[in-house]
């Protein structure tokens, strides 16, 4: 092999190591490895002692037959995910996107910024604010309005209707992402289409139906899948606001796995539960990948020298 080619090859390998190496290393250690560990762990009996003594299918049989709490958690998960998704993450996000693009630009941007506030603030702060709002005493903002303005009795939302609280809390966060994506999609519709529709006699509702919705079909499906996955898997706000309670009343599946592992020390069982989520996650990720326009992302390189 001529010298030039050999030097090329050496540099090629060096480049690969230099540029991609760090990323590959990190991903292998803290992304791939945990997935494998979880897979193995699900078949062990690791508990509080952090020791593995046997390999067993006990975790799965427990899941399928002996765990009564699990059923409850599944039910709560279903209610939580469906309600939050349909009411807030998709519908309300759409509404916000439509309304903020229908008012003058500056005003729309202002209100979008307001609705991004929950997502942009730290989860601890957001959760704290919710706790203060639904405080069962007269201090709670909600109760203040109910008692002084509407003349009703004070409510204890956190204990009586905890599911409602977490749906609202997660909903506000969820709506903001959809709002951004949908707004961007609406903005990319060529202005001339709107002009033509207006000259053709279409009113605002007809314009939304014939011009806006067709352009939003793809973002809506993408958001639906993406947000379903996100709601299935994240429990941060639930943990902060209700802790999963009272008792297990707001413990969704993902939180259930977490609590079993870190509150009860049943690490293997938690891993087994998480495994299910991991599988769902992989499937959903593959579906999303199919939906995305791979061709655009795979621009072929044009320089072949190293």
């Amino acid at each position, binding site marked *: 092999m001529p010298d030039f080619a050999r030097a090329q090859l050496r540099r090629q390998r060096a*480049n*690969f190591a230099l*540029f*991609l190496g*760090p*990323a590959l290393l*990190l*991903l292998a250690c*803290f*992304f791939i*490895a*945990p997935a494998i*560990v*979880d897979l193995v762990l699900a078949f062990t009996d690791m508990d509080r002692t*952090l020791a593995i003594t046997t390999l067993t299918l006990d975790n799965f049989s427990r899941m399928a037959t002996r765990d009564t709490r699990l059923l409850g958690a599944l039910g709560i998960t279903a209610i939580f995910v469906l309600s939050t998704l349909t009411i807030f993450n998709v519908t309300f996000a759409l509404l*916000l996107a439509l*309304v903020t693009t229908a*008012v003058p630009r500056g*005003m729309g941007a202002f*209100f979008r910024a307001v609705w991004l*506030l*929950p997502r*942009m*603030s*730290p*989860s*601890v702060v957001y959760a*704290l*604010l919710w706790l*203060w709002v639904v405080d069962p005493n007269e*201090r709670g*903002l909600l109760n*203040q309005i109910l008692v002084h303005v509407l003349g009703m009795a004070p409510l204890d939302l956190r204990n009586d209707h905890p599911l409602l609280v977490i749906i609202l809390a997660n909903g*506000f966060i969820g709506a903001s992402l959809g709002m*951004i*994506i949908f707004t961007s999609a609406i903005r990319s519709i060529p202005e001339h289409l709107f002009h033509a529709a207006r000259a053709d006699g279409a009113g605002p509702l007809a314009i939304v139906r014939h011009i806006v919705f067709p352009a939003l079909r793809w973002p809506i499906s*993408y958001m639906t899948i993406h947000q379903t*996955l996100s709601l299935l*898997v994240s429990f941060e706000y639930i943990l*902060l606001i209700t802790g999963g309670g009272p008792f297990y009343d707001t413990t969704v599946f*993902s939180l259930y796995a977490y609590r079993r592992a*870190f509150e009860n020390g049943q690490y293997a069982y*938690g*891993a087994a539960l*998480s495994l299910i989520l991991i599988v769902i*996650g*992989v499937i*959903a*990720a593959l579906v999303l*990948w199919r939906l*995305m*326009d*791979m061709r*655009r992302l*795979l*621009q072929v*390189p044009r*320089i072949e*020298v*190293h």
Partner: protein
Amino acid sequence: MQVDATVAPDVGAAAALRADWGALARRARWKRAAGQSGLLGFLLVVSVPIILPYFWMVVISFTARSGGVSTQVLWTACAVIVPAVLLYSVVHLLAPSPRVRVVAALLLLVTVGALLAALVGGQLHLANYRFLWRTNIIEEIRSKATAGGQFPSVWTAFFNSLALALSQTAIILTVASLAGYYISRFAFRGREAFLQGMLVLHAFPAMTLIIPIFLILHWVGLLDTIAGVILVLATIELPFYVFVLKGFFDAVPWDIEMSAMTDGATRRQAFRMVVLPQVRAGLIAVAVFAFIRAWEEYIFVRTLLIENRNWVMSLYLFWVSDDIMGVDYGIVAAVSVFYVVPSLLLYVFCQKYLTQMTIGGIRG
């Protein structure tokens, strides 16, 4: 060609329509006013549940005295501000000229400021912020140590957070830009597979891996260290940032690199000296976003950090509120405000960069 009777304009109908211009104009004016005010009203109503609590938190931090929390200041302030906002909205809708709007805004601002100063000014104080300079605040209030040990000073938590966020950002910037550039510019075996893999990882929810991550860090001895958390956080977000930066690199024209190479640079030099400066906007966007994310992280730090001295701001706030919530709202509110302000400031001032982040055409 014979003119088809059905195609030529219908003179009769046209004449009838002509008479209605005035009515149409009046109806259109009405519709526009009603429509815009309706939309604006809707937006104001749905935004109140969000603005009010944040505002309340700020108010509490400046007015609450040890013991209770009252909403009197809040409602007084609202009583002044809400009419002002409504008044401004009306002005904004009716007067399209920018000069009138600015004048109206300034007038209202001054009036509101004066009224607020008069009505509630006396109740403002900074006592709640004393946690910033008196580090034993929690013990003082509770008159005993809690949460399994001494409460660290808020500044410990602050600098831990800072270290965490800055290191994580540095790692992400370096690793993601190197990887993003390589994917964007080099042909290598398995490029497509790598991209597909990254795409799947990006969409995959990393939260599900928290249990095994905990165990892995324990086994390598990085549990309860800031360093461990830094590595974990950096890795989890990596696929997303690699894609974002790849997008920015894709947008740099090939000619620039080609000319650098004909000028004698190796590809690494071309990367460092010519291409990297072109994606500065992308790097800033990624840096700001990554920093804010790390600043606000809760679940992973809660799970992976245990010792008090390792606490970051999110944990500090959590335990403070957990401990003295019923006793002293004011301090909790003040800590909250102190915690939120940096990320909000960053978000506001760097918004221009953040909105440029896009992955495959979807903006984040």
